[in-house]
């Protein structure tokens, strides 16, 4: 998805410098647009593999256990958990923070790596984004049920009510609510928007009426029109821009839940960066934990290559080391600060306390074990990576356990020291949350494309008009005829990449010059022509516009770079809607917080003035992002005129290829220059195949 800049995957734009290290493609082996569609879509189209049902039933059984635990808790009260004085937060908040953290890898991959043009993200972003959403659902359960009177959970939201009570906008817990709900909403929108072109592919491949209808509705009538792509690409960029600060803010805000309190071990300024690094660390571990088996059983190793795993392991190494640094720095500062309470907490944590074992589990799993990723063999051996990331996941759970339970059990007063003993309900709830996560993940890989097909198509060598195809024998070899690195040899062993198609596959029956439409009006809608590849379509579109046609559109399986200019369009105005949304959200946040906190129900919190605004900043930010995201979605749907479930162009016999591997050009009949015969002849003259006039 590279709508907005003019970069390509190689250095073809610059002077032709010798390239001693040929760039390894992101997808290995022969792959064209149709084969990518086929490889990813067929996972959802064929009957589920034999292991799927047992795995699903086990997950669903665990989920039911969680449901029973939650029901027991709600009907009886939070006393059924082991949380009690002094450890009032234990498994609930541990699991909440654990799952929120898991989600961060998805947003990092989909947003931050997008802004940094890390195109390898396209193979894994869909999967990671889905995991984000499922993890946030798992996390969101705990704040919902740990409030005790579950049916009053809506009190957390600033809704007008007969009691005229409103939440305290200066509380970190309320910031957390806004942060997590914004995070969930934006992640869901981002994920869904990314899915739309792929859902259209599934619709066009569908054989059964049921799949056609379901994916027809879900894809909102997406057909790969360039008029839509030009909004879509910009919307995607906007979402990436909105999500980037969001992903950094969410775990910062979660860390404020602790850092703004006075408990020794919590009250520290290192928390936000330390939590964010830990979240990305744990998130990548969970992505690998799920991705490695899925990649193996669905034979996706040419799309999610060993290099992807390698790069993710490097992320784990980097963030794990940051987290380890934070652990050591915390310990050092506790000693160096001379604060006796802080030091006794950390001494108790690391050396002589009841939970020292948990601290060292955390240290071993998070700091020491990931250091094996300095070695390439360890990064590139999937089964070994799987073992390491399991330790990381365990370690990250223990990190939260140590921070929460250990800090609470030993606070200022020796008289209030105590221990935490989880009950069976705690355990069942926690295991049930894993059941929920894996149930959702299994349903996802069964029913939705787990690789972003449209994005992967855009990074194939054949999609790059500047790609320098060498003879197959020289593929990925250096000037001396040798593979420069072992990675090159490995990538080359999958075979050379497919070259762009040069001819249009003939349909089973020749396309008639006039295609009637069921319940048509008799008048033509326009002329449609198919082209062999994106570069040819781009040329044809430019020539069509140069010939004086105005109502021109190109229909492509991925956004072909430069196509919007070729059909005579400019950059989308969609960012104005994003801006309007952001300003609306910010204004509402300002009015809401000042009205409630300074005027309507003024409360003194922390000795601040009523109008003191600094503590309002987190909610300013969250509401800005939330409204900007919702406005962007509405603008995308509105500017594209979606949903458009019916379109006359669907009648064209080969048009369903358009969302898989076909490239189409259309000229509408409302164009002043349109003439059924002349326009059709013109498109044929440009090299168009299967040219037909479609009835409106």
């Amino acid at each position, binding site marked *: 998805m590279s709508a907005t800049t003019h970069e390509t995957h190689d250095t073809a734009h610059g002077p032709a410098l010798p390239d001693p290290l040929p760039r390894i493609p992101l997808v290995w082996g022969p792959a064209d647009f149709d084969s990518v569609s086929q490889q990813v879509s067929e996972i959802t189209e064929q009957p589920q593999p034999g292991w799927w049902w047992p795995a699903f039933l086990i997950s669903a059984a665990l989920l039911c256990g969680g449901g029973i635990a939650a029901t027991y808790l709600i009907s009886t009260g939070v006393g059924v958990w082991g949380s009690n004085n002094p450890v009032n937060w234990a498994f609930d908040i541990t699991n909440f923070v654990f799952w929120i953290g898991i989600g961060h890898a998805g947003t990092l991959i989909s947003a931050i790596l997008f802004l940094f043009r890390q195109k390898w993200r396209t193979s894994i972003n869909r999967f990671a984004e889905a995991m984000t959403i499922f993890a946030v659902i798992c996390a969101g359960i705990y704040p919902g049920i740990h409030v005790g009177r579950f049916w009053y959970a809506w009190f957390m939201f600033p809704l*007008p*009510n*007969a*009691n*005229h*009570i409103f939440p305290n906008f200066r509380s970190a817990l309320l910031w957390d609510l806004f942060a997590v709900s914004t995070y969930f909403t934006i992640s869901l929108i981002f994920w869904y928007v990314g899915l739309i072109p792929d859902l259209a592919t599934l*619709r*066009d491949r569908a054989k059964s009426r049921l799949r*056609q*209808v379901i994916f*027809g509705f879900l894809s909102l*009538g997406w057909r790969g029109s360039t008029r839509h792509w030009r909004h879509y690409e910009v919307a995607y960029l906007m979402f990436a821009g909105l999500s980037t600060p969001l992903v950094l803010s969410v775990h910062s805000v979660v860390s404020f839940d602790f850092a703004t309190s006075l408990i020794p071990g919590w009250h520290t300024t290192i928390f936000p960066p330390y939590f964010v690094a830990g979240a990305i660390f744990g998130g990548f571990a969970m992505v690998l934990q799920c991705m490695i088996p899925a990649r193996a059983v669905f034979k996706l190793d040419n799309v999610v290559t060993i290099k992807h795993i390698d790069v993710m392991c490097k992320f784990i190494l980097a963030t794990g080391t940051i987290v380890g640094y934070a652990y050591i720095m915390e310990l050092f500062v506790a000693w160096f600060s001379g604060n006796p309470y802080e030091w006794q907490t950390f001494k108790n944590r690391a050396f002589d306390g009841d939970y020292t074992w948990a601290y060292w589990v955390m240290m071993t799993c998070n700091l020491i074990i990931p250091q094996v990723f300095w070695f390439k063999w360890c990064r590139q051996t999937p089964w070994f990576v799987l073992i390491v990331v399991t330790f990381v996941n365990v370690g990250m759970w223990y990190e939260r356990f140590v921070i929460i339970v250990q800090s609470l059990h030993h606070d200022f007063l020796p008289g209030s020291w105590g221990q935490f003993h989880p009950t069976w309900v705690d355990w069942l709830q926690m295991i049930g949350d894993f059941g929920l996560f894996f149930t959702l993940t299994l349903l996802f890989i069964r029913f939705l494309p787990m690789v972003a097909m449209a994005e992967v198509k855009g990074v194939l060598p054949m999609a790059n008009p500047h790609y320098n195809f060498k003879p197959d024998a020289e593929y990925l070899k250096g000037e001396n005829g040798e593979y420069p690195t072992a990675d090159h040899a490995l990538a080359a062993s999958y075979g050379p990449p497919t070259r762009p198609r040069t001819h249009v596959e003939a349909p089973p029956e020749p396309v008639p010059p006039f295609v009637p*439409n*069921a*319940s048509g009006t008799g008048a033509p809608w326009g002329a449609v022509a198919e082209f062999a590849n994106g570069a040819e379509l781009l040329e044809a579109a430019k020539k069509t516009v140069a010939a004086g046609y105005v109502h021109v559109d190109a229909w492509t399986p991925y956004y072909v770079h430069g196509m919007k200019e070729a059909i005579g369009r400019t950059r989308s105005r969609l960012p104005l809607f994003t801006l309007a949304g952001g300003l609306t959200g910010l204004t509402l946040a300002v009015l809401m917080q000042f009205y409630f906190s300074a005027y309507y*129900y003024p409360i003194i919190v922390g000795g601040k003035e009523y109008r003191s605004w600094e503590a309002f900043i987190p909610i300013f930010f969250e509401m800005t992002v939330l409204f900007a995201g919702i406005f962007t979605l509405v603008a995308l749907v509105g500017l594209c005129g979606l*949903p*458009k*479930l*019916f*379109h006359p162009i*669907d*009648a064209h*016999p080969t*048009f*369903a290829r358009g969302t898989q591997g076909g490239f189409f050009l259309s000229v509408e009949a409302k164009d002043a220059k349109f003439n059924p015969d002349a326009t059709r002849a013109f498109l044929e003259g440009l090299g168009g195949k299967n040219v037909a006039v479609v009835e409106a």
Partner: protein
Amino acid sequence: MPAIFSRSLDGHLRRAAVGLGVAVTLFVIGWYYYALPSYTRVGYQPDQPVPFSHELHAGKLGMDCAYCHQSVFESPHASVPAAQTCMNCHNPKMANVKGNSPLLAPVRASYDTGKPVEWKRIHKLPEYAYFNHAVHTNKGVSCVSCHGQINEMKVVWHDQPLSMGWCLKCHNDPHEHLRPFDKVTDLTWKPKPGTGAEIAQQLAVKAPMSCQSCHR
């Protein structure tokens, strides 16, 4: 490929979306109107075992509220009068005002047996909310502020929502609801605008705003 959906579906979808939007808006508005105490409580007017008319007693006859609700200035509870209070006038053997009216039979029975008349309670606060009549009446809050124009009610109804938000509205800014102490039970007296601050100072009114004032 033949079309999956019919030509008219997109129009239907848009109309359905508009309809859904309108329906949700109406539901939310309806919820806020019908689910709040301003609707669920206000207007509750049960038939009482004795058709006692406040309009007659407190209105036309001009009896003071505290004649029957004796402890309203001294106690958290205003108190519902015992049959003895009624019998001061309605006792057939003494003053004999309508002493033999069949409508008063339950009162006479109560007086004879000592079992109270089973009045239906109209104004009821939740157990977790502590309300003190005496402190309100002594600080210049009239009966009419919470109970409405009782002196005009033949059958008493629930006049105000008595929700927490409703309480807080006055606690936030009590001045316009205050009156001189001797006018507290004068239900026809209307406070003069602008006098509230002075009365508040005289009666040392400090309407508390902390949670613990009512949720003890």
